[in-house]
Structure formats: structure tokens, C-alpha cells
């Protein structure tokens, strides 16, 4: 009997000691942090998460809403969501869904995670050379810079977070940083990225779908332009234009090659959507698709009826711009959808012309999904044109008009080139560039930021109201709201303010009653 008790006791003691180990279980379908960051492929997978984050509906939708929806280019189509309607109504509140910045911060967190852990992989995986690490760091830095650039343009001031979120022991109540600090960080990151960014990944899809040196330079040019460093911007654009593998697509093939097929010769950085991974739902539902051609967004009616508001057939007084611009018919239809016309860009493969000359749009079917172009050659050309126009001097203005002509002429085949004489002064050239950017880049998430740059130069919304005016249809309330600088930025989401008590609301949206509630 005693023997038995001893055996039992021994087992119990061993049992208790091994209890703690027995209770250590790791998940079977996921890898825990302690076991991750061992191989090159693991590091690459987290880098890819940054790209994957950008094609999520959350980011994609915001690129359109923040970049285009508030501009004169867009009105409500068929059954837009309540949040979209409120934005169009100049009634943006801290509860609006588009005040939610989470999807971009997810991308930032993936990039931060990569930048934090990837250097340690070099020691563990022989194949992961420091060179590989640096080119991938260049990608992560650029993706993070791009995300912050979107945020800073939409919100003006946001929390600047450069460390990964790992555990519940961290402080997540990060206050806002000033625009200056954020822009400096973006520029610094991009300058580092520039040094090691790849020029080619070996396949056309990856060359357009991942960050290349051209993409870094294009983004840097855009940031400089926003930051009013025009000479730097012009220089960055020049570096992109120096790459002769980038070629403009012929005017009549733009619709098919650039926006339908995608990854064209003029594309620089293009988000790669894939029907098996992620539809471009924002474009599908916003711009339309084969079996639902009426999208939630539309091209304004006044562009069709009020000639002077429209960048197309722009013919006040002595000017005669864009009289027979193929971009007009390829950008939007003349059939009404909600309070505007159907949008064509991205959603049709071509306009098929019948013998009698009637053009019918051939829509994208539900088994295809469009890529989203972040930067393409004509954008860079026109950024340089804008920078030069701001720099002034006759030579610069002349080159600016010349640059405008490169994109203009491919779409106005029957017209003559625009002559500098007609746009002799700085203001006219600036206006011309703005109009050409509108014609060329309409519905590409650029217009609102173009207008914001205009506003930021004079620190007054009055120039913006000139363009937005027709859309506000003389509504005094709306005009008043749009006349405040801070109102042109988005509010911080109410729930975010409640949780992150270090944040303060964008001044225009401070409602004492809301916060005291």
C-alpha cells in the first residue's frame, strides 16, 4: 500500500511540474509573433500586406471620396449611401463614415511592423540579403508615406505613428502632429526610399503594381507640389520623365489600354485588383458595371449644359480649348443618372461606334475588375507643368504650356496645339494646367487635391468656390460652410475622439455640446 502511495505521489509531482508546459498551446492555423520573422518569405508577406491594405474597400473608397467626391467633378448618382450624400450636401459630421481613417492606419501599421522586424530576418535567413532588405524597406517607407500623404491631405493634422502595434501594454492614445512634422517625415522617408528603390521587378504587372523608383519620385513630386516646393517638384518630375520606357498611350486607346486592360506603358503605380482576391467595389458600385450601369456617383449635369463650368469645350472669349476632345465622350455619358450623367472612366472597355456613327459603351462585366491608377505619366507631366507655372518666369511658363500640349494633343487630334501667346500670363497658364489636369485625370481621385493646392496657395477658399459654385447651386448655408479653411479638411471621427482622449477635433467641427454629452 505504501509503495502505491509513493508511485502516486511521484506521478502527481511530475504532473504538476509539467502542467505549465502542458498549458502552453500555440494556434494551429496562425503563426505567433515569437515564431514569425524567420524567413524572407514571411517578411515579404507582411510587406505585401501594405499593398493588400490599399486595395481594401476602406482605402479605395476613401481615395475617391477624399480625392474627388467633394470636387466639382462629382454629384450623386443612383442611391448613393447616406455618408456619400452627406459629403455631397456639405454636411460632414464627426459621425460620417469617411471621417474614419482606420483603413489607412492599418496599412501604416503593416509598414511599421515590417520596418521594425524585417531587419532581424537578415541574420536568420541567408537568402535575405541586406540589399533585398533595403529595396523592400524602400517599398514599405513609400507605402507608409503614401498613406500619411492621403491622411494629411484629408485631415490636415493626424497622429504620426512610426512604431508597430504589438501588445495591450502600449499607449495608443497618440495626439495629433502638425502638418509640418508629418510632411517632413514623409519627405525624409521618401528620400531614403529613393536610394534603394528598385527600377524593375521583372514582370510588367509587378513593375506597375509595386513601388518602383518612378513611383517614389512621382509621390515625392506630389508631396513637394502640395508643400509648395515647386523647384523640387519639377526636378522629381524630370527624373520620372527621363525614364524613356514610360510612354503615353495613343489618345483613342487610352480608355481600353490605360483604364480597362490596365498596366499600360504610361502607368507608374497602379493598385492591382483581382477578382479572386478583391474586387474594386468602390469603382464598381460608384461608377457602374455591366448589369448596374447606374453607379452611385455621377458626372454633373452642369458640365453638359453650362459650357463655362465644363473643362471640355471651354470657349470663353478668345480661347478655344478642347473643342473636339475624345476625353469628353470617353469620360462620361450624356445619359442621365440621378442628378448627373453616367461615368465611363474605368468601367467601359471602349465606345463601339456603329455605321451610323452612334457610340455605344461596352461595359465591364462582373467577371472583371479595374485596377486603380495612383500615378501615371500624364499626371507627372502635368504636375511638372503646375510646378513650372508656379515658378513663373517666361521660360518656365512656356515649358509648362508645352507640357500641357503633350497630353492635350493626343486627345484633341483635330486641334492645333495650345499656343503660349494665348496664355501669356502666369495666372492663365496656371488655370490652363488646372483645366488640363481636370480633363486628363477626372475621376482618378485627384481633383479635390488639385483644388486644395489652389486654396492653400492663397490660404483662402474663394478660388475653390469659383469651381464648386455651380454644384452648391447658390445654397448660402453650403457656401458659408465651404468658405472656412478648416471646413475643407475632414473631421476626426467622433468615436475616435471618445476613445483617444489625447486627440482634439479639427477646429471647424468642434461642437461643445457633442463632446460634453
Amino acid at each position, binding site marked *: 500500500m505504501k509503495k502505491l502511495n509513493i508511485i502516486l505521489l511521484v506521478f502527481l509531482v511530475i504532473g504538476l511540474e509539467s502542467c505549465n508546459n502542458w498549458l502552453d498551446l500555440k494556434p494551429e492555423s496562425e503563426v505567433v509573433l515569437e515564431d514569425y520573422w524567420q524567413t524572407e518569405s514571411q517578411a515579404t508577406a507582411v510587406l505585401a500586406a501594405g499593398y493588400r491594405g490599399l486595395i481594401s474597400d476602406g482605402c479605395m473608397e476613401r481615395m475617391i471620396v477624399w480625392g474627388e467626391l467633394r470636387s466639382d467633378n462629382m454629384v450623386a448618382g443612383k442611391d448613393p449611401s447616406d455618408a456619400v450624400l452627406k459629403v455631397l450636401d456639405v454636411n460632414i459630421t464627426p459621425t460620417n463614415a469617411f471621417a474614419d481613417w482606420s483603413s489607412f492606419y492599418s496599412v501604416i501599421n503593416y509598414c511599421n511592423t515590417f520596418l521594425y522586424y524585417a531587419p532581424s530576418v537578415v541574420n536568420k535567413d541567408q537568402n535575405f540579403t541586406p540589399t533585398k532588405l533595403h529595396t523592400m524597406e524602400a517599398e514599405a517607407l513609400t507605402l507608409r508615406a503614401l498613406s500619411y500623404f492621403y491622411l494629411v491631405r484629408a485631415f490636415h493634422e493626424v497622429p504620426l505613428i512610426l512604431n508597430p502595434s504589438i501588445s*495591450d501594454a502600449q499607449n495608443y492614445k497618440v495626439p495629433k502632429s502638425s502638418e509640418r512634422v508629418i510632411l517632413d517625415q514623409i519627405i525624409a522617408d521618401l528620400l531614403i526610399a529613393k536610394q534603394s528603390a528598385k527600377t524593375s521587378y521583372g514582370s510588367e504587372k509587378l513593375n506597375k503594381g509595386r513601388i518602383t523608383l518612378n513611383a517614389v519620385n512621382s509621390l515625392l513630386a506630389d508631396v513637394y507640389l502640395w508643400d509648395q516646393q515647386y523647384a523640387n517638384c519639377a526636378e522629381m518630375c524630370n527624373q520620372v520623365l527621363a525614364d524613356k520606357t514610360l510612354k503615353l498611350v495613343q489618345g483613342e486607346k487610352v480608355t481600353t489600354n490605360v483604364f480597362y486592360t490596365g498596366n499600360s506603358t504610361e502607368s507608374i503605380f497602379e493598385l492591382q485588383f*483581382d477578382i479572386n482576391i478583391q474586387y474594386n467595389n468602390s469603382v464598381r458600385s460608384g461608377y457602374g458595371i455591366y448589369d448596374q450601369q447606374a453607379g452611385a456617383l455621377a458626372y454633373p449635369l452642369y458640365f453638359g449644359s453650362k459650357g463655362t463650368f465644363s473643362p471640355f469645350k471651354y470657349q470663353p472669349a478668345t480661347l478655344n480649348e478642347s473643342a473636339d476632345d475624345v476625353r469628353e465622350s470617353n469620360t462620361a455619358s450624356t445619359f442621365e443618372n440621378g442628378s448627373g450623367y453616367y461615368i465611363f472612366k474605368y468601367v467601359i472597355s471602349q465606345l463601339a461606334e456603329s455605321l451610323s456613327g452612334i457610340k455605344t459603351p461596352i461595359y465591364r462585366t462582373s467577371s472583371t475588375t479595374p485596377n486603380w491608377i495612383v500615378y501615371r505619366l500624364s499626371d507627372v507631366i502635368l504636375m511638372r507643368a503646375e510646378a513650372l507655372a508656379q515658378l513663373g518666369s517666361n521660360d518656365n511658363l512656356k515649358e509648362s504650356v508645352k507640357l500641357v500640349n503633350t497630353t492635350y494633343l493626343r486627345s484633341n487630334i483635330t486641334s492645333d496645339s495650345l499656343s503660349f501667346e494665348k496664355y501669356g500670363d502666369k495666372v492663365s497658364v496656371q488655370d490652363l494646367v488646372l483645366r488640363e489636369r481636370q480633363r486628363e485625370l477626372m475621376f482618378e481621385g485627384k481633383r479635390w487635391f488639385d483644388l486644395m493646392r489652389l486654396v492653400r496657395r492663397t490660404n483662402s477658399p474663394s478660388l475653390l468656390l469659383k469651381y464648386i459654385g455651380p454644384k452648391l447651386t447658390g445654397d448660402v448655408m453650403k457656401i458659408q460652410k465651404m468658405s472656412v479653411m478648416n471646413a475643407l479638411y475632414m473631421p476626426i471621427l467622433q468615436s475616435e475622439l471618445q476613445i483617444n482622449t489625447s486627440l482634439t477635433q479639427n477646429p471647424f467641427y468642434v461642437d461643445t455640446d457633442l463632446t460634453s454629452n
Partner: protein
Amino acid sequence: MKSNFAITLLFILLLLPFTAKSERPGVELIIQGTVSSKTDGAIIGASVTEIDGNNRIVNGNITDVNGHYVLKIKNSENRISFTYIGYVKQIRKIGNSKSINILLEENTQNIKEIVVTAGKRHSEGGYNIPKREIATAMQTIDMKEMEGLQVSSVDEALQGRIAGLDIVSNSGDAGSGTSMRIRGASSINGSSQPLIVLNGVPYEMQVTQNFDYANSNQEQFANLLSINPDDIQEISVLKDAAASAVWGSKGANGVIMITTKKGRTGPTRIEYSYRYTGTIQPQGKKMLNGDDYTMLMKQELFNPAQSSLASNVPEYTYDKSFPDYENYNNNTDWVKEVTQIGNISDHYLTLSGGGDRATYRVSGGYLSQNGTIIGQTNSRLSTRAYLDYMVSDRLKFTAELSYSYENFNRSYTFDFGDNNSPNEDLSILGIAYKKMPNSSVYNQDASGNNTSAYFRTPTTSTLNSDQLYLVNPVALAMGAKNNVKNYRTLPTFRAQYDFTDPNKTLLRYNMYVSFDINNDKTTLFLPGAITNYGWTDERYNRAENGDRESVTIQTDNNIAWQPSFENKDHSFLLYGSLQTTEGNSSFQNIINYGLESSNADDASTAGYLKEEKTERGHWRSMGILGRAHYSYLGRYIFDGTFRRDGSTKFGNGNKWGNFPGVSLKWIATDEPFMAGSKKWLSMLAFRPGWGIAGNQPEFDYLQYSRYGNNGSYAGMPVSIPVSLQLKDLKWETTSSVNYGCDLGFFDDKILMDMNVYFKKTTDMLFKDVVLPNSSGFGKLTYQNAGSMNNNGWEINLYANKIVSSKDFSIDFRFNIANSVNKIVQLDDAILNTYNTNFNYNNGSYLTRIQEGNSFGSIYGFKYKGVYQYDKYIAGSQEDAPVGRNANGKVITDEKGVPLPMYYNYSKKSGGNPYLFRGGDAKYEDVNHDGNIDNLDIVYLGNSNPLFNGGFGPTFRYKNLSCTMTFNYRYGNKIVNTARMLNENMYSMNNQSTVVNWRWRKDGDVTSVPRALYNYGYNWLGSDRFVEDGSFLRFKYLTFNYSIPRQLLKKFSVDKLNLYLTFENIFVLTKYTGVDPEVGYGSFGISEDKGQTPRAKNLTLGLTIGL
């Protein structure tokens, strides 16, 4: 090695009894002889066995045709036993004899009446103490009390019978479960459901992180209790922490212990029972017919725009030139169309019996049910076997096996329509209440005759999306598929070994291994033909297949030691146990839409892939338990428990939790000085107790930062960190103090127990705590943040034969309980997360959790009726929308113009100001500023009942008994969302007949505002829709008649019982909804979303025993 350690240990322990005891070699002998009887001579086939000191069979043989036997003896110290059916067993010592002849005697002598005075004992495995020495708050129900009830699950039967157990059925749908709470909710986020323990083995329910607990709860829980009531012996409910500390981390919400019936020694008994139940749905809300509805809609559309253009909808105008005229000129009662008389038939067959060594009980049953909603069916096949085998007096094995297969056809629920309204009810019944009554069920031809096709609103219709996309509920019930098949197998093996003679000193080892294999298969299909969605919509021809399987293995090794003292005043029991749990689960789901045909409706057919998901889980936990029970003179009792629980759900520092419990009992009536009052006071005992129980998160791997797949980008596989590492997460602990008192009067004719308790939950686990989005993560899966109190009392009374004569007697049961819940402290971040601003939308209540208030509080406006007039004219038209000061005087501007009443004048939350008009809802302007806004929101009540309980008498007359059961809740508030949506006159949904009293013109005096389509603020979250949920329900009335044995003997039938039960006979309540028994939703608020009400049942049953 690690993972299998517990199991290895267990088998080694299992083998110990055999290896440890070495046989003493004796001289090998052969014994022979004959077995015969006086009357019959030689007995053929009598069993002759050699048994050892513990009555373990060592060797055996049977007699041949001459009654002769030969037996090789292993040990001459052993004895020989001679048995034959119908004869008295004889046992002889072997000694040195070589031949033993036996004369068996027939077993015919009459046994004198024996009076057994031993008290009932309470046993949990080796822990076995007299029932009267239980020192904790525990209540036990013998299932005999419930004989004759039609209960498809056990939880329903408990309703109203246990003090402090608040059970609310989730709905009357076939197979839906209940919400149970023992002594209030101790956790805000975690499950408040108590732990179920079946024959000492906890029923584990494991969920993975992405599992939608809130929505799957109903079926899961019903599933959990799929034990046939016929198999249940008794149910005990452990309420205080001193008792539930035994279950450590799992017992924080209380424990329900179920003991099933076992076999009994004796000849094979066969029992068959059959029950038939007819079910009808109580009359619900009266809805408008087609004529009233179209009239309402035209007004509703006209009012906001004041234009007949808006109200000119062809579906409402009865215009014969409208192509669908015939389909829109009906008076369809959709509720009637989707309901039916339900029925349940339940067959159950039990075989039980056993001999000296082994007893068994095998049972099996089949239940089939048709729900009260068309298309709902449920069938269940269940079997259970219980086998006890005594190897010797010291060693016993038990095998228990249960298997059940359930096949549910449930209603298909989906988000049809526009989802404009909050808390949309998506059930078939919910749709029936909304569907426009002037449309027809079947497509009608030009002359108004029904065709065979279901009518579907044409996609070209100008109706708003509420109606346009709202499916025909009859077509949905008959055409869509939502099938769940559940297979569950629960084998348990037990062994028990006594190291010593149990009649002297008890040293008993007990173990079990229990498996729970649970598989679910779900198949869903929504045919495109019944919806209005295009073929690229993900709801068109949508098929879904899901498979979930889990295996849980639980083991328990325990030792009980009870020394026998010379001095019989002392009694002492020590008990130690080591328990382990290990489980695996996997889940896969596939959703395909746009299938080519609705005939091939499996998700494996070609279509667009919507989702493909797999998940795996693996978890372990371990508990070490020590218990001590000491009693002195049988009246001073001490009980102590200490449990240490380890779980894989926590990180290194917090893996283990300690859960102690102490309880004392003093049986005062056993004191000599109380002898005088013993005549009337037969029992008086006091039971103070204290204990700590714990709660752990539902999910695993929280202590890790995990990386998971997230598709790919441009051919590059993507991994993302999917979770934040929870370094600081620890156990939620609930400590409670319980003061109990047991009373018995008049020789225990009236028994009563009372409990007062104070429960405090600290480190409360909060799920999905919101993080700043700038972290890149939306939520922290769990956080410990705050504490909460639950205090209350319970009284339970049982009067046994208070009236009794020779043939007639009456019993009476009564219980009442109260629980008050208070949030003591909460983390600011949590408060901010939960306490969002008022959104200024119709239909929403401000949800708040506040320190010092109880959980489940409702906040909203005060509803004061309807403005009688549009324009204020002093004296004649007083009741108009103008601002008034605190004295009720109208506020005017400097020109004497009355200040109009506004809603949200300061445009908060992005809303626009609204000027109230005549016929609009009138809300109390609490701060008298002529503006209704968030400052006018007040506390409207709480969903926790002041008290709840049940009572009922049992009458017996000869062989006939009649039992009544009532249950009640008092003082809880319910948000009647169903009524809100049925009376808001805001959408195109059908409304209840109450709206016929709506305000139509100046001067109308009514409490129902005017109809406004998508306009105005007539249905803000106010006390108009917050109702008192108090009720008294006559739940059961059962007649039970057992036919006298004398009559049955002729047919060699042992027992024949007949019974008749009426269930849910009536409900007394002021609540205007269909059923005042509403479960708890988010924030602990009871919200009536119009779920299927509890049915009225009639059950006829019989039990035959052979």
C-alpha cells in the same frame, strides 16, 4: 509526451489496483459436487463461482445436465458462490474440502416490512456526504415532479422551479433555447449562462473567435441540453460560490448538475412512453388588412409632402388599368399564412435491469416536431446506455454512452429589404408582420384566381426598397433551405476502486475519461426566384455549406478519504482531484452565389465564390481540487474547497487562478436545548458561506500576437498581424458571500430555505474593447476593466402534504428571488466606448453604462402623447407645439409670439432641426428650452426584474394527481421594438390596427401620432415603447393517472400511466407585446423584437412498464 501526460497518468492509475495487489499463491485444488433443489432435483445451469475476499469473481463454471460441476480453485482462502434464478444464493468457504454438494432453497419466503431510516445522501463522485450536511446554497429537483410534462429540453422544465434561477426562453421557435441566469448577470460581456454538469462531467462549449456568439446562442444552447427528460433522475442547482468554487473557472455563473437514471438490480424492466403535443401560437398583434393599409399608406405618403403626387402609388390605388391590379387588391393575413398548428410526437423506450454484478439501463427515443411556423421541422433520435459492472466489492466500472442525432429545418433568415429600421426582425414571422397585406400570396390571373406560383413584387415596381426587396414570407418558408444536422456522441468511462473496506475506512479512488464528439452540418440555400436581387447580387441563388466538428476530452482522477473514528461524534472527509480538459475543433464554411439553377442547390456547384473559410482551435485546461468536509455531532459542519485552475487562454504570468470556498452549517434543531420545540420546528439550520469563482475569455491564443493569411496581392501571399498580444489579461473573479437558513416545520411537512447573497465580480472581462483606429487595430479582444455587484435574496418553500387524508393530499411549492445588479467601477475607455452620443435618429435609445447604476438601464425621452392642434391659440387650442416654461406657461418672444417647439434645434450630430406640427409626437421638454434634444433624455427603467419566481400546488386523489405550475417576473422593463416598428407609420411596412386611432386632423384627441412617411420624429426612443414586463403565467397544468396495479396484472403490465398537460394556459400581464418573456440583449436590455411567441401546448402521454 506533455500533451498525453494526463491520459497516461490516468491509465497508469487505472492499472494500479491490479498490479499492486499480488495474489497469494495457494495450493491448487479441484472441487466438485452437485447442485440440486428439494422440489426439482438437479439444477441445470446453476452458476458456481469462486470469489475472493472482496467478492471479485476469480473463476467460475456452471452445472451440467446432472447438476454436476467441477471447479479448479485458485486459492483455498476464497469462497464459492452458488446461484440460480429463483433460488437463494449460497456461499461456502472452501477450506480443505474437495467436494461440496449444495441444496438450494427456493426464494419464496415473504420478507417482513423493513423500515429504512438512513437519510438521503448527496454524492459527486467520491465526494459523498449526507444530504442534511450540505452547507451551501443548493436546490435539487427530483424529475418525478415533472413527469408528464412535454418538455423538449430540460431548461424549460426548470422554469419557475428554482429560486434565483431566471430562465427566459429565447423564442417559441422549434429548437430554440433559453437564456438562463443564476443570481443575475455577473459578467457584462462573457456568457452569463451557467455551467451544465452531466453526471459529474462538465458539458463544455467551446467557440472560436470569429464565432458569432450572440446569434448562434439559441441553437447552441438548445443543443447543449439535448438530454431526454425521461433519462433524468434529478437536477441540482448550485448557486453560491462556496459550492461552485468546486468548478473553479467555469462555475462563476452557477452550476446546474444533472444526474441521469441508472439501472437497478432486478429483472429486465421495459418502459415505453409516448407523448403527443399539439401546439398553437397565441394570437399575436392584430395587423391592418389590405384596405386599411392602403388608406394609411396614402395618408402617410401625402403628409410630409402635402401632395397627392407623392401618394399616387399604383400599388395602393386599386386602379384596374394597373397590370398587377389583381395582385394588389387583396386582404392577406400574412401572419395566418405563415403559421400553423404544430405538433410533436415523442417515443421513448427504456430497458433496465441487472444482476449482482452488473446493472444496465438502455434507452432510445425519437422525437419529431413541426413548428408553428410553416417549414420548421425538427427531428431527434437519441440513445443512451448506462452500464455498471462490479468486478468486486471494491472495483467498479461504469460505461456511459449517449448519442443523439438532430435534424433541424429552420427558417431562412437574411437581411431582406433596405434595413432602414433599427433592429430589423428577419424571421419569417417578422416578415409576415411587415409585408403589405394588399398583395397576394400567389400570383393571380386577370380574373383574380390564384395560380400555383408565389407572387413576387415585380422589380419594376415603384414601391420603396423596404417592400420591393421584402420577400414573400410563404415563398421563403417553403422555398429556402436552412438545415442543420447535429451529431453528438458522449462516451464516458469510469472506474472506482476502494483501497480499503469501504464499510470501515473509506479510501476510494475514482476516475473518468469523457469524450464529447460534436458535429454540425449546416446547409443553406436561398433561391433567386423568390427575391428581387439581380443575378450578380450575392443573395441570388446563394448556397452555404458549413461543417463544424469538435472533440473534447475530459479526465478526472480523484481520491476520497474518510477515516472512521472511534468517537462517532466526528466525521471527516478529504477529497482531492486532478482534472484535465483538452479539446480540438475545426470549422469550415463555403458560400457561393449566383448558382446556375435552384435545383442544384449545394454550395459545391459552380457559382461565384463569396467566402471560403476554415478555422481550427485547440485548448486545454487543468484543475487541481481539494475538498474537506468535517462534521461534529452531525450538527456543526465545516466545508472547505480549494481549487487551482490553469488555462491555455492566458499568458505566462496569469495562467493559474485560485478559487477557494468555505461554508459552515449549524443545525440548531439538533441541539439538546431545542428539543422542546422539535414538535413544530423540525429543522433550523444556518449556513454562512464564502467563495471565489472565476471566468475566463471564450477564445484562445489571446496571449499571442498572431500572424494570419490575408489573401494575396499581385501574386504575393499576404500575412498580417491579426491580433494584439494581451499581456496583462487575467481571470475575472467573482467572490460571493451567502447567508443561508434552512427551516422545517411540523416534522418537515413544510420545508423552507432562504438565502441572502452578496456577489462581487472584479477584473470584469470586457470583450472587443475599442482601440483608437490609429493603432491599426479596431479592437482589443479582451480587457479586464471594472467591477460589478450582484446582491439579492431567495426564498424557497415546499409544503409536503399540507392537507392530507386517506385518499387526498395537497403539496405546495413556492419560490421567489430578487437580484440587484450594480456597476461599481469601470475603466473610462470602456465607458467611452459603450456610451456613445445620442444619434438623433428615430427608434434609438441612448445606451449608457454608468458607475453606480445597474446594468440593463434604458434611457430615452418621455412621451406625452400627441399635439392636438397645429397652431397655438391661447385658451382654445392650448395643446399645440409651443415651448413652455417650468410653470407650464407658454414662452413667447418680445412680440408675444409663442416660441415654437423644435427637435434638435442646434443641429447636433449632423441632424437637421425639425419643427413640430399638430399630430406629431409630444415629448417632455425636461429643461423647458422649447427644444427637444439629448438634454431631455431621462432614465426610463431597467430590464432586471425586481423579483421573479414560481409556485404551484399538487393535488393527489388516489391514483390521480394534478400539478399546477405558475411562474412570474415583476418589475422589469422591456423595450418593445416590435411594437415600435408596427406603430411608427414611417415606412411602407404593414402596421398594427392601433394606428387606426392615429391623429388625422386638428382637434383629434389620441395617443397615436400622425402618419409620416420617412419624415419627422414620431418614434424617437421614448417611454412610449418601454413597457412593464411583469407577468404571471399559468405555465403547466398536468393530470397524471396511474391505473391501479390490480387491473393491470391481468395483462401482465407492471405500470400504466396516463397524463394530460396543458402548457401556457394564460398570461396575466399589462405588456402589450405578444409575450412578456423576453431574453436579455446587448447592454443587458430586454428588447422584444417580435420573436415567435411561446406556444400554447396540449400534451397527451402514456407510459407503459412491463
